[in-house]
């Protein structure tokens, strides 16, 4: 899973690894707060909305409640987006794909849980196939309660998120690395003991210097047997059997 030729290589950004406390020095502090300001003024939402709350996003984007004047515009792939909007109930099947999508996004990234179903189960709290609390499986920055919240409420929530980003308090994506064992344990509670994603989260945590004591644990021990180290490709022989891939079990 690390450094195979087909899978993308996750590199740390040029410069220093990220740390949650701001760096010392007046110049660096000024640059950091300017970059945080720009991050808060230009938010790209992932235009993939799960569940029934997605219907409240087109009104927020069209001419009556224009979102673009706040700097928010939709982007189509997780690689290009900052914010993952979870609008509506999250069935177990969808939750798997949401986690895969979340791990494909680039940091700093934010998750907003719109609608009451992400808060505490909502209307489908008695259902055997929906996840009740979203922040057990993913770190969530902002909840917007409602069923569905009106576009004014969505915009209010996005503006609060903007203020949170500007003040530097929206660091939940680092929390995913710091407590990855806890999150993976909760995910495996739903999906099975062997569940894992193709993203090497521990290696990323190591690159960002976010390897806390909550990152490795008993749940992440299962990932060891799926880790493949880089091997030289033997070009003299034809492969006789298909290569085993590291995709999660279906």
């Amino acid at each position: 899973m690390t450094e195979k030729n087909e899978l993308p290589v996750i590199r740390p950004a040029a410069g220093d690894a990220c740390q949650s406390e701001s760096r010392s020095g007046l110049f660096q502090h000024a640059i950091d707060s300017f970059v945080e300001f720009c991050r808060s003024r230009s938010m790209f939402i992932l235009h993939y909305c799960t569940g029934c709350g997605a219907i409240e996003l087109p009104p927020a984007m069209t001419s009556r409640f224009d979102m673009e004047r706040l700097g928010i515009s939709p982007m189509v792939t997780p690689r290009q987006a900052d914010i993952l909007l979870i609008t509506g109930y999250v069935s177990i099947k969808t939750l798997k794909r949401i986690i895969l999508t979340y791990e494909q996004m680039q940091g700093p990234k934010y998750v907003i849980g719109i609608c009451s179903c992400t808060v505490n189960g909502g209307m489908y709290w008695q259902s055997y196939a929906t996840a009740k609390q979203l922040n057990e499986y993913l770190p969530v920055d902002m909840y917007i309660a409602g069923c569905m919240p009106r576009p004014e409420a969505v915009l209010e929530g996005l503006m609060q998120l903007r203020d949170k980003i500007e003040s530097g308090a929206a660091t939940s994506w680092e929390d995913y690395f710091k407590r990855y064992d806890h999150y993976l344990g909760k995910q495996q509670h739903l999906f099975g003991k062997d569940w894992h994603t193709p993203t090497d989260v521990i290696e990323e945590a190591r690159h960002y210097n976010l390897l806390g004591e909550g990152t490795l644990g008993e749940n992440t021990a299962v990932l060891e047997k799926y880790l493949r180290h880089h091997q030289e490709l033997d070009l003299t022989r034809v492969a006789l059997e298909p290569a085993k891939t590291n995709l999660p079990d279906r």
Partner: protein
Amino acid sequence: MNVDWKILLVELILMPIVAFVVGLLLVLLMRKVRARIERRVGPPFMQPLYDIIKLYGKKTQISHGFIMDLGVIMVVGGYIAAEVFLPVPGMDGMAREGDLITLIYLMMVPSLGLALGVGQCANPNGSIGIARALTSMLAYDIPFVIVVAGAVILYGTSNLTEIIAIQQAGGLSSWGVAMMPLLAIGGLISSYAMLGKEPFELYIAPAEIATGPMVEMSGKYLGALFVMQCFQVYAVSVLYVTLFLGGGENWFTFLLKIAAVIFVSASVTTIFPRYKTEDAIRWLWKWPTGISLLGLAIVMAK
């Protein structure tokens, strides 16, 4: 080559900065025009700059290899190299050394760079997108080259500074638009196709192929592509203004003219859907090519 190399060096540093700033304003103009036509307000003034700084401030880098990095550098570098050949009021840059033909070659480099970069990504959306981009480049280059050839024949020179001097010497009636109107129309349409805006937006196509070549570009790569968009808008509009609208006598009229070109483009973009690939090629090889050939015949007959 009687040019002071010190002045040339200063110009080579200043001209990209000018192009970037003007490009940011033009991108903002496009978004504002689109928003106003859709009866919205549109982004605030510094929005393109915030987008670029935010993208460069991403902390994760996802690269698919060295060729992808090289491809993105080619994309941005191609347009930066192209715009130093475009004279602005007060600075001529390399326009005296290189001429229109060099400029056309340089404006094809970014698409090839993008193809290189996307090829390594191994994402099918990206491959489809870049195939469409190169196909549409084949489509719009035919009328574009005819228009450029017609302009060169009319002015008798392919040096951009002399073209501007000829147009400004004669006043309004010696602008390219007045002297070769058919070629001006053909050039306008093919320059919109070069910008990749509706109805020729087939290589970006956000909802269809997930933004095509940009699908795996993220963070700093996407920031570089946004910078490319600024330079691209600037280069295409300034080329059109130089050939047909008399260049810029001073900064005020220069900015007004390129804003007019982009204003019309953004208005057309907002109200049209996008063509399919084969429809775009068929249309671009029929109408703009036909009009340009007619204009070329008229010019050659004079």
